Structures are given as structure tokens and as C-alpha cells.
């Protein structure tokens, strides 16, 4: 999942980025409003975390510009302004959530999870595909009762495919939503991790969870042998 953080206060921005990356998200960050808008308009994000009091362009202006352009990406406002009027203003401007500073990073993570869940039409933090279940809160994967140990990257990849269960997801989409831009951009990085994931999810009966659609991408769907 790829998150955009637009916050001008450096210590807070750094802490949020680190927290989100630790939780397995790919994160882009900007300290200025106009640059943040450029990021949002030119990349596909699963959630945008947006401060209001920004230099050059404030958060409400960014919100308005994106919504007018038809962007449906979930947006969480973070602001020190806690009055009811300010919250109403932010929500009416198109924000999906409003978090008042100071806040716990854990809460921010939970709200990001909630927004991404909603964006993909999932009602709970628990995703189930066949006998595979994925607990997004605990970042745990179970097959039946047995836990499947995954690396953070493998987990992020599986989570993204699970959120888009039943859909064919292209390599580019996986790259955009799971990988940080500063990471190695080799063309087969996605294929390599898909291979790792397949190996860890392989079923004794030969059934597979990750299907390949040649020329299109990958699909998370259990197929018996």
C-alpha cells in the first residue's frame, strides 16, 4: 500500500514516515503544499495523510483540487485545529477522516488501515481467501490454524493482492502500491517476490493462491490442483 504524507513540520513528518514504513507501507512525503499536490496528481496512492497549515498551498486547497478532479483516494486530515467548525470544514471539503494533533502514531496507522479497507470495499480488518486468512491489524497470515511467516515485503505484497481479491493486478500497480521509489527498480523485483510468496503459500494438495495472467498481471484466487 502506498501512502502520501504531506506535513511541513519535519519531526512529525519524519516520525509518521518511519512509522508507516515500519508497518509495511510504501511512503512518499512532502513538506510543501504545491509539491504534495503534484505527488497526489501524478501517482496512485491508497491513502493521503494531509496537514492543513502548509506552505505555498494549504491542505484544504489540495483537498479541493483533488476532489474537483474526481480523485477518490481516501484522505486523512491531520491538524492542530480541533474546533467543531474546523472539523466540519475539513470533512465537508472532502476529507474522509480528521485527526487532531497531537495523536498517537498507532491511531494514525489504524485510521490508515480503515481507510484502505474502505477503499477496497472491505468491511473488516480480516481478509479471507479460501482457508487463508490475513489479519491486517496484527499483520498475521494464517492458513487454517497455522501461521504463515512472511517478511514485511512479502506481507505487503500479499495484503495488496488480498485487498484486490478477484482482480487482476498488474506488475506496475504492485510496484506503485507496494514499493518505495528509492528502492531497486529492477523489472523482475515483483516477479521475484511473487515467487517467494507462492513458495510460502504452496498447498500440500498442489492448489495455488496466486494465479498468473500472461501479459496482465497476477490474481489472488485459490485454485485447486
Amino acid at each position, binding site marked *: 500500500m502506498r501512502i502520501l504524507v504531506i506535513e511541513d*513540520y519535519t*519531526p*512529525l513528518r519524519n516520525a*509518521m514516515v*518511519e512509522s508507516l514504513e515500519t508497518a509495511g507501507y510504501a511512503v512518499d512525503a512532502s513538506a510543501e503544499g504545491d509539491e504534495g499536490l503534484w505527488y497526489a496528481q501524478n501517482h496512485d496512492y491508497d491513502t493521503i495523510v494531509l496537514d492543513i497549515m502548509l506552505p505555498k498551498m494549504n491542505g484544504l486547497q489540495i483537498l479541493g483540487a483533488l476532489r474537483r478532479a474526481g480523485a477518490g483516494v481516501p484522505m486523512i486530515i491531520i491538524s492542530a*485545529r*480541533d474546533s467543531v467548525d474546523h472539523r466540519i470544514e475539513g470533512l465537508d471539503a472532502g476529507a474522509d477522516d480528521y485527526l487532531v*494533533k*497531537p495523536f498517537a502514531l498507532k491511531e494514525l496507522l489504524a485510521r490508515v488501515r480503515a481507510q484502505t479497507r474502505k477503499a477496497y470495499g472491505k468491511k473488516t480488518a480480516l481478509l479471507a481467501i479460501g482457508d487463508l486468512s490475513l489479519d491486517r491489524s496484527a499483520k498475521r497470515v494464517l492458513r487454517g490454524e497455522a501461521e504463515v511467516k512472511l517478511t514485511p515485503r512479502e506481507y505487503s505484497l500479499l495484503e495488496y493482492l488480498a485487498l484486490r481479491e478477484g482482480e487482476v493486478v498488474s506488475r506496475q500497480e504492485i510496484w506503485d502500491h507496494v514499493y518505495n521509489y528509492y528502492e531497486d527498480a529492477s523489472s523482475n523485483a515483483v516477479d521475484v517476490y511473487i515467487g517467494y510468496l507462492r513458495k510460502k503459500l504452496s498447498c500440500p494438495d498442489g492448489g495455488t493462491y496466486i494465479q498468473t495472467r500472461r501479459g496482465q498481471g497476477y490474481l489472488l484466487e485459490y485454485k485447486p490442483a
Partner: protein
Amino acid sequence: MKIFSIRSRLIFWIGSVVTLILASGSYIIYQTAQTTLYREIDQSLLSLMTLESLELEIIDGQVDHEWLTDIKNDASRVNSAYIQAWDETSGETIRSPALAGTDLPRERGSDGVHFSNILLPNGNHGRVVGKQILPVIEWTDASLAPSAPVESMPYYMAIAMDIETSHSALRRLGGTLLLGLVFSLLVSIVTIRLIIMLSFRPLERLEQVIHKTDVNNPKDVFEMPQDLPTEVRGLVTQYRDLFFRISRVREREREFSANVAHELRTPLAGVEATLEQALVTDRTASDYKQRITEASRIASQMGELVNRLMWFSRLHNQTEVAELTTVDLTQIIETRLEILGDAISARGLSVEPALPEEACLLQSDETLLGILMNNLIGNAVAHSDPDSVIRISVRHESGRVFCQISNACRDFDADELTRIFQPFYRSDAVRGGDSGHSGIGLSLSQEIAKLLHIEINARFAESTFTMEVIFSGK
């Protein structure tokens, strides 16, 4: 003391004036009618007196009250003629039968004629005229002519007339006028109340409009009713302007409070997030140290901000008192430059001071002046273009001291000059939390300048930003 409403006062005073006018008019009408009537009556009486006085004769030395004889012989006059005559020499009196033994008044007027009102023996109101008369003397024989002159035989005659009819008519007139007065008064009061009620209706509508207006919403300026009386338009306009100013002040206060909350909450969020992230997993000692140091730095900045806000609040609310002593402006500037030395070097800046060699002594508050110069010089250091020159000069002119601080600032928007002294205003260059700039420095400087009676101006021209501080001199 009871305060009466305009309505009550208008009703009372207008009602009083109307009552006075109506009462005066009624009185004048009544008096005129009465005077005219009595004049007619008195004329009649005088005419009767003239006639009857001729009927008092002395014939051959004998008094003959022929008027009495005429009355007795005229049945219509027996009960209606009220005449009495006195012999002023002997005091004897002769009365007409209608008087029934009662006396008419015997008084003298200034011209010998006296009029008065009486009650007649029959109970009716009467009008009487009295006058001294001289009898008509006649003799049949010259030897019977009186030896004394007729003036030595004066008589007083009084004649009364029944004026009950006229009196009743006057009474009816008086009653009618009184009723008319009362009715007119009532109608006047009702009309006055109606007019006042209609006149005050726009004010009542205005009252409702004002009642519904939200003083916390500066955009909610009430509209003046079109039918408002011209007498109060000026007052309402002033009130509306005052209300708008109060709303603006409230809005600025709310904005200031919101800004303070924002400026404190944001670094607080930074501290909380930094420490929370430090604790989320096991880390190396140096990692912990780095994060704790960062949190400590932010906390220190917050402390400085709180300090500045306290200063600002005290100065803005005029609870701070300047302690005036003799201070050396040159030394204050040099001290500040020394403190900011690292920051100056870090940005590749150089400083060109043009300070007088001798001390520049002023009567001022050393602490506040230090804060002021620290803010101005600190801003110049923070906002100067990298590797540029900051010029600081102090000069004496016309008994005043001028201090100028100039720095190159290519990206400064001249339109922002009007905003730089607003609380929490910061240019985009120093936002982000790393610079320690809270945006309160210039507002604080302005408050200090007000307290110390210093003039402070900002100019921007040809990519150079200049702050000028003018002291009134020692």
C-alpha cells in the same frame, strides 16, 4: 431614580401640551361667551336704570316713586321687577314687591355704577346694577320749588334682572367645552400612542434583527431596516460599525487562540510521535539518544514559544511596565551579533556594521530592547539570501537615533509587508520546525516598540528588505 421610556415621555409631554392648549382654548371660549353675555345684560340693566331713575320724582316737595306705582299696576312685573331705591339723606328705602323684603346690594363702582351677581329671592341667578341717581324735581307752583339744589337730595337705585336662563346656557356651554376637552384629550392620547407605536415599529424590527445577529460571526452584519427613522439612523450606523469592529476583534482573538493552539500542538505532536516511534521497537543506544535529543530540542523550542507568548500577552494587554535605564544600543547590537555568530556562519552570511564608535545611549528597558533587537537581527539572519550581506547601521539625526537592518531577500513578496507584523505570520522559507521560528517575533517586537515609544518600519525595495527602528533619543 425611575427611568421613563421615550414613549412615556412623548405621551406625557405631548398629552400635557395638548391638554394645555385645549384647556386654554376652552377657557377663552367660555370667558368670551360669558363676557359678551354679561355685556349685553349690563347694557340692558343700564338702559332700565336710565328709564326707572326718571320715575323717581319730587313733586311739590313730595317724593313720588312712580316706578313702584308702575310695577304695582303691571301684573307681569309685580313678581319680576327687582328694584330698590334708597334716600341717601334719610336712609329710607323702597323695594319692589318681588324683592319680598330682601335688600339688593348697595355698592359704588369706580364710575358710580356697580354691577354684581346675586341670588334673587326666588332662588334664580340675577344680575344687579346700582347707581346713585338724582330725582326729577317738579313743582306746580313756584312757591313750592325746593330751596336746596337737587344734588342735596341724592338717591341710590339698584335694579336686578333674572339671568337664570343665560346662566344655565353658560353652564351648558362650560359643560360642553369640558366634555369636548376630555374627548379631544383622549383622542389625542390614542392618536399619539398610535403614531408613536408606528414610529417605533422599525426600531422593534431592528431590535429583533440585532437579537438574531451572532456576535461571533463577523460576516453576520445586520441590515438596517429601510423604514428606520432618520433620527436614529446615525446611531444605528455607528452601532453597526461598532458591532462589526467587535466581531472582527473577536475573530482575531479566535484566530490568535487557534494559531496559538496550532503552534503548540504541532511541536507537541512532534515530541509525542518522536518518542512513540523511539519506543515501538528495540533500538541502539545512539538511536535512542538521537531521538531523545530531537524530542528535547522540540520541547526547548516549545518553551521558547511559550516564553514569547507570555511576553506578547503581557505587552498586548498592557500589564508589562517598562523599567527605563540608560542602555547602550551599540553594545546590545554587538552582543546579539555575537550570539547569532554560528547561525550567521552557517548560512555563509557576512555582517557590515556601521555603528558609532562612541556609545549610543538611550533611555529604555534593557531586557525588552534586547528582545526587540534579537528578533530583528535574528530575522535578518534567517531570511537573508545565502552568502549575502547584512548591513546594520546606527546614526543620530535631528535629536533622534535611527537604526537600520538591511538584508538581501530576493524571494520576498512585497505584498506581504502588510502581514509581517501579524502574530504567527511566517514566510514559507522558515516553516518546517527546524528553524525555531514561531512567527511571533515581529508581533512581539511591535508590542515592545509601542511600550517603549519606538517607531518601527519595514521596507522592501530592489530585493532588499530593511527594518528601521527610530528612537526618540536620550
